[in-house]
Protein backbone atom coordinates (compact mmCIF):
# COMPACT_ATOMS: atom_id res chain seq x y z
CA UNK A 1 0.00 0.00 0.00
CA UNK A 2 3.00 2.33 -0.08
CA UNK A 3 4.76 4.38 2.58
CA UNK A 4 3.12 5.56 5.75
CA UNK A 5 2.19 9.22 5.56
CA UNK A 6 3.88 11.52 8.03
CA UNK A 7 1.55 14.49 8.00
CA UNK A 8 -1.86 12.81 8.29
CA UNK A 9 -4.48 14.09 10.70
CA UNK A 10 -6.80 12.15 12.99
CA UNK A 11 -9.74 12.45 10.60
CA UNK A 12 -7.64 10.90 7.87
CA UNK A 13 -6.62 8.07 10.15
CA UNK A 14 -10.24 7.36 11.11
CA UNK A 15 -11.42 7.53 7.51
CA UNK A 16 -8.68 5.17 6.39
CA UNK A 17 -9.33 2.71 9.19
CA UNK A 18 -13.05 2.61 8.43
CA UNK A 19 -12.48 2.38 4.67
CA UNK A 20 -10.44 -0.80 5.08
CA UNK A 21 -13.45 -2.54 6.58
CA UNK A 22 -15.61 -2.33 3.45
CA UNK A 23 -15.31 -5.39 1.21
CA UNK A 24 -15.65 -5.16 -2.53
CA UNK A 25 -19.27 -6.39 -2.53
CA UNK A 26 -20.44 -3.54 -0.28
CA UNK A 27 -23.64 -1.75 -1.26
CA UNK A 28 -23.73 1.03 1.31
CA UNK A 29 -26.00 4.00 1.85
CA UNK A 30 -25.67 6.89 4.24
CA UNK A 31 -27.74 9.15 6.45
CA UNK A 32 -27.34 12.66 7.84
CA UNK A 33 -24.09 14.09 9.25
CA UNK A 34 -22.08 11.14 7.98
CA UNK A 35 -18.96 12.82 6.67
CA UNK A 36 -16.57 10.17 7.95
CA UNK A 37 -18.41 7.20 6.41
CA UNK A 38 -18.96 9.05 3.13
CA UNK A 39 -15.25 9.80 2.94
CA UNK A 40 -14.38 6.23 3.89
CA UNK A 41 -16.70 4.78 1.24
CA UNK A 42 -15.19 7.07 -1.40
CA UNK A 43 -11.70 6.02 -0.32
CA UNK A 44 -12.54 2.32 -0.33
CA UNK A 45 -14.02 2.61 -3.81
CA UNK A 46 -10.90 4.40 -5.02
CA UNK A 47 -8.57 1.78 -3.56
CA UNK A 48 -9.23 -1.86 -2.64
CA UNK A 49 -12.97 -2.03 -3.41
CA UNK A 50 -13.58 -0.81 -6.96
CA UNK A 51 -16.94 -2.57 -7.18
CA UNK A 52 -18.26 -1.05 -3.96
CA UNK A 53 -21.52 0.76 -4.56
CA UNK A 54 -22.40 3.77 -2.49
CA UNK A 55 -25.91 5.20 -2.50
CA UNK A 56 -25.39 8.83 -1.51
CA UNK A 57 -27.99 10.21 0.89
CA UNK A 58 -29.73 6.85 0.36
CA UNK A 59 -30.82 8.39 -2.94
CA UNK A 60 -28.10 8.75 -5.56
CA UNK A 61 -26.65 5.44 -6.72
CA UNK A 62 -22.92 5.31 -7.46
CA UNK A 63 -22.25 9.05 -7.84
CA UNK A 64 -18.96 10.79 -8.52
CA UNK A 65 -19.18 13.95 -6.41
CA UNK A 66 -16.57 16.65 -6.80
CA UNK A 67 -16.80 17.55 -3.11
CA UNK A 68 -18.84 16.66 -0.05
CA UNK A 69 -20.58 19.87 1.03
CA UNK A 70 -22.37 20.84 4.23
CA UNK A 71 -24.98 18.06 4.33
CA UNK A 72 -24.56 14.37 3.57
CA UNK A 73 -28.24 14.26 2.64
CA UNK A 74 -27.95 16.96 0.00
CA UNK A 75 -27.55 17.09 -3.73
CA UNK A 76 -23.89 18.11 -3.56
CA UNK A 77 -23.20 14.39 -3.37
CA UNK A 78 -25.31 13.26 -6.30
CA UNK A 79 -23.28 14.28 -9.36
CA UNK A 80 -22.87 11.57 -11.92
CA UNK A 81 -25.15 9.06 -10.22
CA UNK A 82 -26.52 6.17 -12.28
CA UNK A 83 -29.90 6.49 -10.54
CA UNK A 84 -31.80 8.84 -8.28
CA UNK A 85 -33.74 6.44 -6.14
CA UNK A 86 -36.19 8.83 -4.63
CA UNK A 87 -39.08 6.70 -3.38
CA UNK A 88 -39.05 5.49 0.20
CA UNK A 89 -40.88 2.32 -0.75
CA UNK A 90 -38.18 1.22 -3.19
CA UNK A 91 -35.41 2.33 -0.89
CA UNK A 92 -36.73 0.33 2.04
CA UNK A 93 -37.39 -2.66 -0.14
CA UNK A 94 -33.75 -2.92 -1.16
CA UNK A 95 -32.54 -2.30 2.39
CA UNK A 96 -34.88 -4.97 3.75
CA UNK A 97 -34.09 -7.55 1.10
CA UNK A 98 -30.36 -7.18 1.63
CA UNK A 99 -29.53 -5.74 -1.80
CA UNK A 100 -28.28 -2.66 0.05
CA UNK A 101 -26.20 -4.47 2.63
CA UNK A 102 -24.20 -1.88 4.60
CA UNK A 103 -24.88 1.14 6.80
CA UNK A 104 -22.77 3.22 9.19
CA UNK A 105 -24.17 4.40 12.51
CA UNK A 106 -23.08 6.86 15.10
CA UNK A 107 -24.86 7.62 18.33
CA UNK A 108 -24.74 10.10 21.13
CA UNK A 109 -24.31 6.96 23.23
CA UNK A 110 -22.97 3.54 22.22
CA UNK A 111 -22.92 0.50 24.49
CA UNK A 112 -20.74 -2.59 24.72
CA UNK A 113 -22.94 -4.51 22.25
CA UNK A 114 -22.98 -1.75 19.66
CA UNK A 115 -26.50 -0.58 20.43
CA UNK A 116 -26.93 3.17 19.94
CA UNK A 117 -28.90 6.06 21.43
CA UNK A 118 -29.77 9.21 19.55
CA UNK A 119 -33.05 9.92 21.32
CA UNK A 120 -32.54 11.43 24.79
CA UNK A 121 -29.97 11.95 27.48
CA UNK A 122 -31.85 11.44 30.74
CA UNK A 123 -35.32 9.95 30.84
CA UNK A 124 -37.57 9.89 27.81
CA UNK A 125 -40.33 11.77 29.60
CA UNK A 126 -38.07 14.47 31.11
CA UNK A 127 -34.92 14.50 29.07
CA UNK A 128 -31.85 16.40 30.12
CA UNK A 129 -31.03 16.69 26.43
CA UNK A 130 -33.57 15.96 23.73
CA UNK A 131 -31.56 14.56 20.82
CA UNK A 132 -32.78 14.49 17.19
CA UNK A 133 -34.32 11.04 17.47
CA UNK A 134 -33.48 7.61 16.19
CA UNK A 135 -34.57 8.34 12.62
CA UNK A 136 -33.75 5.22 10.67
CA UNK A 137 -31.66 3.63 13.42
CA UNK A 138 -34.44 1.43 14.77
CA UNK A 139 -35.11 0.27 11.22
CA UNK A 140 -31.70 -0.20 9.70
CA UNK A 141 -30.19 -1.66 12.83
CA UNK A 142 -32.68 -4.52 12.41
CA UNK A 143 -32.74 -4.80 8.65
CA UNK A 144 -29.20 -4.29 7.44
CA UNK A 145 -26.78 -7.15 7.84
CA UNK A 146 -23.52 -5.18 7.92
CA UNK A 147 -23.46 -2.39 10.47
CA UNK A 148 -20.41 -0.21 10.92
CA UNK A 149 -20.17 2.06 13.94
CA UNK A 150 -18.03 5.13 14.19
CA UNK A 151 -17.47 7.86 16.73
CA UNK A 152 -15.26 10.93 16.79
CA UNK A 153 -15.77 11.42 20.54
CA UNK A 154 -14.43 8.35 22.26
CA UNK A 155 -15.13 9.17 25.92
CA UNK A 156 -17.25 7.93 28.81
CA UNK A 157 -20.19 10.14 27.83
CA UNK A 158 -20.41 8.38 24.48
CA UNK A 159 -19.28 4.84 25.30
CA UNK A 160 -21.58 3.98 28.17
CA UNK A 161 -22.39 0.89 30.15
CA UNK A 162 -26.10 1.50 29.84
CA UNK A 163 -27.85 3.54 27.17
CA UNK A 164 -30.43 6.06 28.32
CA UNK A 165 -32.52 4.85 25.37
CA UNK A 166 -31.92 2.12 22.82
CA UNK A 167 -32.73 3.86 19.55
CA UNK A 168 -30.95 1.39 17.31
CA UNK A 169 -30.13 -2.27 17.70
CA UNK A 170 -26.59 -3.56 17.53
CA UNK A 171 -26.05 -7.00 19.05
CA UNK A 172 -28.90 -6.30 21.48
CA UNK A 173 -28.28 -7.99 24.80
CA UNK A 174 -25.34 -9.83 23.24
CA UNK A 175 -24.83 -13.50 22.43
CA UNK A 176 -27.47 -14.80 20.02
CA UNK A 177 -30.02 -12.06 20.75
CA UNK A 178 -30.18 -10.79 17.16
CA UNK A 179 -30.50 -14.30 15.84
CA UNK A 180 -33.33 -15.00 18.26
CA UNK A 181 -35.11 -11.93 16.94
CA UNK A 182 -34.69 -13.30 13.42
CA UNK A 183 -32.44 -10.48 12.30
CA UNK A 184 -29.54 -10.64 9.83
CA UNK A 185 -25.86 -9.93 10.58
CA UNK A 186 -24.99 -7.23 13.07
CA UNK A 187 -22.31 -4.65 13.88
CA UNK A 188 -18.88 -5.51 12.54
CA UNK A 189 -16.58 -2.83 13.90
CA UNK A 190 -16.55 0.47 15.72
CA UNK A 191 -13.91 2.93 14.56
CA UNK A 192 -13.26 5.90 16.84
CA UNK A 193 -10.78 8.70 17.27
CA UNK A 194 -8.82 6.45 19.66
CA UNK A 195 -9.04 2.92 18.33
CA UNK A 196 -10.66 0.23 16.25
CA UNK A 197 -12.95 -2.24 18.00
CA UNK A 198 -14.71 -5.34 16.77
CA UNK A 199 -17.00 -7.76 18.60
CA UNK A 200 -16.22 -10.97 20.42
CA UNK A 201 -17.52 -13.83 18.34
CA UNK A 202 -19.61 -15.42 21.09
CA UNK A 203 -20.46 -12.73 23.64
CA UNK A 204 -20.72 -9.96 21.01
CA UNK A 205 -19.09 -7.52 23.42
CA UNK A 206 -16.85 -4.86 21.97
CA UNK A 207 -13.24 -5.99 21.70
CA UNK A 208 -10.23 -3.75 21.26
CA UNK A 209 -8.65 -4.61 17.96
CA UNK A 210 -6.07 -1.86 17.54
CA UNK A 211 -5.14 1.44 19.13
CA UNK A 212 -4.27 4.44 17.04
CA UNK A 213 -0.67 5.69 17.00
CA UNK A 214 0.01 7.67 20.17
CA UNK A 215 -2.92 6.09 22.05
CA UNK A 216 -2.36 3.43 24.72
CA UNK A 217 -4.64 0.57 25.67
CA UNK A 218 -4.98 2.26 29.07
CA UNK A 219 -6.14 5.48 27.41
CA UNK A 220 -8.91 3.59 25.66
CA UNK A 221 -9.94 1.78 28.84
CA UNK A 222 -10.01 5.09 30.71
CA UNK A 223 -12.27 6.67 28.10
CA UNK A 224 -14.67 3.71 27.79
CA UNK A 225 -17.61 3.38 30.16
CA UNK A 226 -17.95 -0.38 29.80
CA UNK A 227 -15.57 -3.27 30.07
CA UNK A 228 -13.84 -3.97 26.80
CA UNK A 229 -12.75 -7.40 25.69
CA UNK A 230 -8.96 -7.28 25.40
CA UNK A 231 -7.22 -10.38 24.12
CA UNK A 232 -3.41 -10.52 24.19
CA UNK A 233 -1.25 -7.84 22.70
CA UNK A 234 -3.23 -5.06 21.05
CA UNK A 235 -1.52 -3.88 17.86
CA UNK A 236 -1.35 -0.36 16.54
CA UNK A 237 -3.83 0.80 13.91
CA UNK A 238 -2.07 0.90 10.56
CA UNK A 239 -1.68 4.58 9.72
CA UNK A 240 -2.72 5.86 6.31
CA UNK A 241 -0.24 5.76 3.48
CA UNK A 242 0.78 8.85 1.57
CA UNK A 243 -1.37 7.70 -1.32
CA UNK A 244 -4.39 7.31 0.94
CA UNK A 245 -3.94 10.74 2.45
CA UNK A 246 -3.61 12.29 -1.00
CA UNK A 247 -6.70 10.45 -2.17
CA UNK A 248 -8.75 11.58 0.83
CA UNK A 249 -7.76 15.19 0.25
CA UNK A 250 -8.66 14.87 -3.42
CA UNK A 251 -12.00 13.16 -2.74
CA UNK A 252 -12.91 15.64 0.01
CA UNK A 253 -11.20 18.86 -1.09
CA UNK A 254 -13.28 21.08 1.23
CA UNK A 255 -12.37 19.03 4.35
CA UNK A 256 -16.00 18.18 5.10
CA UNK A 257 -14.77 15.20 7.14
CA UNK A 258 -13.20 17.57 9.65
CA UNK A 259 -16.66 18.87 10.61
CA UNK A 260 -17.05 15.80 12.79
CA UNK A 261 -13.84 16.55 14.67
CA UNK A 262 -14.78 20.03 15.92
Amino acid at each position, binding site marked *: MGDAATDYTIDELVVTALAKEFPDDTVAFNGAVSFVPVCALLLARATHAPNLIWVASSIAVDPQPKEIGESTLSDALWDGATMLQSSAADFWAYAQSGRMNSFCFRGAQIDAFGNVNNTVIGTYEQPKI*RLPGGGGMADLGCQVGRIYLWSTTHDRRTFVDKLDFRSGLGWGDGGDHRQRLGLPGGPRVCVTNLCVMDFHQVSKRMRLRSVHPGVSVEDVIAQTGFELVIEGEVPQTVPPTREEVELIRRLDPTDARKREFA
Partner: protein
Amino acid sequence: MSAEDKLWALGDAAELVRDGDLVAIGGLSLNCAPMAFCRQLARAGRRDLDLLAVVSGMAVDWLIAAGCVRRLIMGLTSFEGFGLAPSFRRAAETGSIQVQEWSEHTLICALQAATAGVPFMPTRAGLGTDMPALHPDRTWEAIDERSGERYLACAAIKPDVAVIHVHEADRRGNARMNPKLVWFDTELVKAAGRVIVTAERIVETSTFRQAPERTSIPGFAVDHVIEAPRGAWPTACWPEYPYDGDFYRSYQRAARDPKAFAELFAEHVAPLSTSASMGA
Protein backbone atom coordinates in the same frame (compact mmCIF):
# COMPACT_ATOMS: atom_id res chain seq x y z
CA MET B 1 -65.39 19.89 -4.66
CA SER B 2 -64.85 20.39 -8.33
CA ALA B 3 -62.25 18.26 -10.03
CA GLU B 4 -61.69 21.26 -12.25
CA ASP B 5 -60.51 23.88 -9.80
CA LYS B 6 -58.72 23.00 -6.61
CA LEU B 7 -56.75 26.23 -6.49
CA TRP B 8 -56.57 27.90 -3.09
CA ALA B 9 -54.87 31.13 -2.03
CA LEU B 10 -51.74 30.89 0.10
CA GLY B 11 -53.12 33.65 2.30
CA ASP B 12 -56.11 31.45 3.16
CA ALA B 13 -54.08 28.28 3.60
CA ALA B 14 -54.64 28.02 7.36
CA GLU B 15 -58.38 27.62 6.77
CA LEU B 16 -57.64 24.17 5.40
CA VAL B 17 -56.44 22.95 8.79
CA ARG B 18 -58.53 22.79 11.94
CA ASP B 19 -57.23 23.09 15.48
CA GLY B 20 -56.57 19.56 16.72
CA ASP B 21 -55.96 18.04 13.27
CA LEU B 22 -53.31 15.42 12.68
CA VAL B 23 -51.20 17.12 10.01
CA ALA B 24 -48.50 15.27 8.08
CA ILE B 25 -45.70 17.51 6.85
CA GLY B 26 -43.66 16.54 3.78
CA GLY B 27 -40.04 17.09 2.97
CA LEU B 28 -36.85 15.43 4.14
CA SER B 29 -34.58 17.18 6.60
CA LEU B 30 -33.15 20.25 4.79
CA ASN B 31 -35.12 19.38 1.65
CA CYS B 32 -38.41 20.58 0.29
CA ALA B 33 -40.69 21.00 3.27
CA PRO B 34 -43.91 23.03 2.74
CA MET B 35 -42.51 26.01 4.64
CA ALA B 36 -44.77 28.70 3.18
CA PHE B 37 -47.76 26.66 4.30
CA CYS B 38 -46.34 26.20 7.80
CA ARG B 39 -45.80 29.95 8.02
CA GLN B 40 -49.52 30.46 7.37
CA LEU B 41 -50.43 28.01 10.13
CA ALA B 42 -48.12 29.90 12.50
CA ARG B 43 -49.61 33.28 11.53
CA ALA B 44 -53.16 32.03 11.93
CA GLY B 45 -52.34 30.72 15.39
CA ARG B 46 -53.58 27.19 14.85
CA ARG B 47 -53.53 25.27 18.14
CA ASP B 48 -53.28 21.72 19.43
CA LEU B 49 -52.03 20.28 16.18
CA ASP B 50 -50.69 16.78 16.10
CA LEU B 51 -47.83 16.84 13.62
CA LEU B 52 -46.51 13.82 11.81
CA ALA B 53 -43.08 14.52 10.32
CA VAL B 54 -40.88 11.58 9.45
CA VAL B 55 -37.56 13.38 9.02
CA SER B 56 -37.90 17.10 9.48
CA GLY B 57 -36.42 20.16 11.11
CA MET B 58 -37.27 23.76 10.41
CA ALA B 59 -40.96 23.20 9.60
CA VAL B 60 -41.58 21.49 12.90
CA ASP B 61 -39.45 24.02 14.76
CA TRP B 62 -41.50 26.92 13.39
CA LEU B 63 -44.79 25.35 14.36
CA ILE B 64 -43.54 24.49 17.84
CA ALA B 65 -42.11 27.98 18.33
CA ALA B 66 -45.43 29.50 17.31
CA GLY B 67 -47.27 27.34 19.85
CA CYS B 68 -49.30 25.41 17.28
CA VAL B 69 -48.24 21.92 18.36
CA ARG B 70 -49.69 19.57 20.96
CA ARG B 71 -47.93 16.42 19.88
CA LEU B 72 -45.16 15.53 17.45
CA ILE B 73 -45.09 12.07 15.87
CA MET B 74 -41.65 11.78 14.36
CA GLY B 75 -38.67 9.79 13.23
CA LEU B 76 -36.01 12.49 13.38
CA THR B 77 -36.05 16.24 14.02
CA SER B 78 -32.83 18.13 13.47
CA PHE B 79 -31.01 20.78 11.50
CA GLU B 80 -28.31 18.24 10.58
CA GLY B 81 -24.92 19.94 10.68
CA PHE B 82 -26.60 23.17 11.81
CA GLY B 83 -27.37 21.62 15.19
CA LEU B 84 -30.37 20.53 17.20
CA ALA B 85 -33.73 22.15 16.37
CA PRO B 86 -33.90 24.66 19.24
CA SER B 87 -37.64 25.07 19.77
CA PHE B 88 -38.23 21.35 19.39
CA ARG B 89 -35.49 20.64 21.89
CA ARG B 90 -36.74 23.14 24.46
CA ALA B 91 -40.37 22.07 24.12
CA ALA B 92 -39.41 18.42 24.52
CA GLU B 93 -37.20 19.11 27.50
CA THR B 94 -39.79 21.26 29.28
CA GLY B 95 -42.60 18.89 28.37
CA SER B 96 -44.66 21.60 26.69
CA ILE B 97 -45.26 19.30 23.75
CA GLN B 98 -45.62 15.56 23.68
CA VAL B 99 -42.98 13.86 21.55
CA GLN B 100 -44.01 10.49 20.20
CA GLU B 101 -40.91 9.00 18.68
CA TRP B 102 -41.29 6.24 16.13
CA SER B 103 -38.73 5.55 13.41
CA GLU B 104 -38.70 6.25 9.71
CA HIS B 105 -39.77 2.86 8.52
CA THR B 106 -42.25 2.10 11.27
CA LEU B 107 -43.99 5.40 10.54
CA ILE B 108 -44.12 4.48 6.86
CA CYS B 109 -45.61 1.13 7.86
CA ALA B 110 -48.28 2.89 9.95
CA LEU B 111 -49.12 5.16 7.00
CA GLN B 112 -49.24 2.21 4.62
CA ALA B 113 -51.62 0.39 6.96
CA ALA B 114 -53.94 3.41 6.83
CA THR B 115 -53.69 3.49 3.03
CA ALA B 116 -54.44 -0.21 2.69
CA GLY B 117 -57.28 -0.16 5.23
CA VAL B 118 -55.69 -2.85 7.38
CA PRO B 119 -55.27 -2.67 11.15
CA PHE B 120 -51.46 -2.85 11.10
CA MET B 121 -48.42 -3.49 8.96
CA PRO B 122 -45.77 -5.96 10.09
CA THR B 123 -42.04 -5.19 9.91
CA ARG B 124 -38.75 -6.34 11.39
CA ALA B 125 -37.86 -2.71 12.04
CA GLY B 126 -37.70 -1.64 15.68
CA LEU B 127 -37.39 -5.15 17.15
CA GLY B 128 -35.21 -5.19 20.22
CA THR B 129 -35.19 -1.39 20.61
CA ASP B 130 -36.85 0.81 23.23
CA MET B 131 -39.02 2.54 20.64
CA PRO B 132 -42.08 0.21 20.52
CA ALA B 133 -42.62 0.54 24.26
CA LEU B 134 -43.11 4.31 23.87
CA HIS B 135 -46.54 3.64 22.30
CA PRO B 136 -47.43 0.04 23.07
CA ASP B 137 -50.99 0.58 21.84
CA ARG B 138 -49.62 1.49 18.39
CA THR B 139 -46.56 -0.76 18.01
CA TRP B 140 -46.31 -4.22 19.48
CA GLU B 141 -44.17 -7.29 19.03
CA ALA B 142 -45.91 -10.42 17.85
CA ILE B 143 -45.00 -13.90 16.68
CA ASP B 144 -46.55 -15.47 13.63
CA GLU B 145 -47.86 -18.81 14.85
CA ARG B 146 -47.32 -20.62 11.60
CA SER B 147 -43.72 -19.68 10.91
CA GLY B 148 -42.63 -18.81 14.44
CA GLU B 149 -41.21 -15.57 13.03
CA ARG B 150 -41.23 -12.40 15.09
CA TYR B 151 -42.46 -9.05 13.80
CA LEU B 152 -43.38 -5.62 14.99
CA ALA B 153 -46.98 -4.67 14.21
CA CYS B 154 -47.42 -0.96 13.41
CA ALA B 155 -51.02 0.18 13.84
CA ALA B 156 -52.49 2.40 11.12
CA ILE B 157 -52.04 6.16 11.41
CA LYS B 158 -54.28 8.17 9.12
CA PRO B 159 -53.37 11.87 8.96
CA ASP B 160 -56.32 14.23 8.66
CA VAL B 161 -54.29 16.35 6.27
CA ALA B 162 -51.01 15.94 4.40
CA VAL B 163 -49.12 18.94 3.03
CA ILE B 164 -46.26 18.59 0.58
CA HIS B 165 -44.33 20.95 -1.69
CA VAL B 166 -43.67 20.24 -5.37
CA HIS B 167 -42.29 22.02 -8.41
CA GLU B 168 -45.38 22.19 -10.59
CA ALA B 169 -49.09 21.58 -10.21
CA ASP B 170 -52.22 22.39 -12.16
CA ARG B 171 -55.66 23.45 -10.96
CA ARG B 172 -56.87 19.86 -11.03
CA GLY B 173 -54.26 18.72 -8.55
CA ASN B 174 -51.87 17.00 -10.91
CA ALA B 175 -48.41 17.45 -9.43
CA ARG B 176 -44.90 16.98 -10.68
CA MET B 177 -41.52 16.80 -9.03
CA ASN B 178 -38.72 17.73 -11.41
CA PRO B 179 -37.33 15.45 -9.93
CA LYS B 180 -37.01 15.76 -6.21
CA LEU B 181 -36.61 13.79 -3.04
CA VAL B 182 -39.99 12.15 -3.13
CA TRP B 183 -38.88 9.98 -0.30
CA PHE B 184 -41.78 9.93 2.18
CA ASP B 185 -44.00 12.49 0.46
CA THR B 186 -46.00 10.07 -1.65
CA GLU B 187 -46.57 7.84 1.36
CA LEU B 188 -48.14 10.81 3.18
CA VAL B 189 -50.26 11.65 0.16
CA LYS B 190 -51.56 8.10 -0.19
CA ALA B 191 -52.52 7.80 3.47
CA ALA B 192 -54.04 11.18 4.31
CA GLY B 193 -57.72 12.06 4.37
CA ARG B 194 -57.10 15.39 2.67
CA VAL B 195 -54.09 16.34 0.59
CA ILE B 196 -52.72 19.83 0.05
CA VAL B 197 -50.01 20.46 -2.51
CA THR B 198 -48.06 23.70 -2.53
CA ALA B 199 -46.21 24.30 -5.77
CA GLU B 200 -43.48 26.57 -7.03
CA ARG B 201 -45.62 27.17 -10.10
CA ILE B 202 -49.14 26.58 -11.32
CA VAL B 203 -49.02 25.27 -14.86
CA GLU B 204 -51.62 24.36 -17.46
CA THR B 205 -52.97 20.80 -17.54
CA SER B 206 -51.57 20.52 -21.05
CA THR B 207 -48.09 20.55 -19.48
CA PHE B 208 -48.94 17.23 -17.85
CA ARG B 209 -50.53 15.78 -20.95
CA GLN B 210 -47.34 16.47 -22.90
CA ALA B 211 -45.21 14.30 -20.61
CA PRO B 212 -47.56 12.10 -18.60
CA GLU B 213 -44.79 9.71 -17.55
CA ARG B 214 -43.31 12.55 -15.47
CA THR B 215 -46.40 13.25 -13.37
CA SER B 216 -45.70 12.37 -9.73
CA ILE B 217 -49.16 12.57 -8.17
CA PRO B 218 -52.48 12.21 -9.98
CA GLY B 219 -54.98 15.02 -9.60
CA PHE B 220 -57.58 12.73 -8.06
CA ALA B 221 -55.29 12.23 -5.06
CA VAL B 222 -55.08 15.95 -4.31
CA ASP B 223 -57.74 18.16 -2.74
CA HIS B 224 -56.15 21.61 -2.76
CA VAL B 225 -53.41 23.27 -4.77
CA ILE B 226 -51.63 26.38 -3.56
CA GLU B 227 -49.18 28.47 -5.52
CA ALA B 228 -46.15 29.15 -3.34
CA PRO B 229 -43.07 30.35 -5.19
CA ARG B 230 -39.97 29.62 -3.11
CA GLY B 231 -42.44 27.86 -0.86
CA ALA B 232 -39.81 25.48 0.49
CA TRP B 233 -37.46 28.24 1.72
CA PRO B 234 -35.31 28.01 3.80
CA THR B 235 -35.23 24.29 2.92
CA ALA B 236 -34.06 23.34 -0.55
CA CYS B 237 -36.19 22.78 -3.61
CA TRP B 238 -33.66 20.86 -5.62
CA PRO B 239 -32.66 21.46 -8.33
CA GLU B 240 -34.25 24.91 -8.36
CA TYR B 241 -32.75 26.37 -5.19
CA PRO B 242 -30.57 25.10 -2.35
CA TYR B 243 -31.29 25.26 1.37
CA ASP B 244 -30.39 28.62 2.91
CA GLY B 245 -27.51 27.78 5.22
CA ASP B 246 -27.21 31.39 6.31
CA PHE B 247 -30.76 31.37 7.57
CA TYR B 248 -30.20 28.17 9.54
CA ARG B 249 -27.14 29.72 11.16
CA SER B 250 -28.82 33.01 12.03
CA TYR B 251 -31.85 31.11 13.36
CA GLN B 252 -29.57 29.12 15.67
CA ARG B 253 -27.77 32.26 16.82
CA ALA B 254 -31.04 34.03 17.52
CA ALA B 255 -32.39 31.04 19.42
CA ARG B 256 -29.93 31.70 22.22
CA ASP B 257 -31.68 34.96 23.06
CA PRO B 258 -35.48 35.31 23.42
CA LYS B 259 -35.60 38.86 22.08
CA ALA B 260 -33.41 38.17 19.07
CA PHE B 261 -35.44 35.05 18.32
CA ALA B 262 -38.75 36.92 18.55
CA GLU B 263 -37.44 39.53 16.13
CA LEU B 264 -36.15 37.02 13.63
CA PHE B 265 -39.30 34.94 13.95
CA ALA B 266 -41.58 37.95 13.45
CA GLU B 267 -39.63 38.97 10.37
CA HIS B 268 -39.52 35.59 8.67
CA VAL B 269 -42.39 33.57 10.09
CA ALA B 270 -44.99 35.15 12.40
CA PRO B 271 -45.17 37.41 15.44
CA LEU B 272 -44.79 35.39 18.63
CA SER B 273 -47.52 35.90 21.16
CA THR B 274 -45.75 35.84 24.51
CA SER B 275 -47.91 33.09 25.91
CA ALA B 276 -47.60 30.83 22.91
CA SER B 277 -43.93 31.18 22.33
CA MET B 278 -41.95 28.03 22.82
CA GLY B 279 -39.01 29.37 20.95
CA ALA B 280 -38.33 32.26 23.27
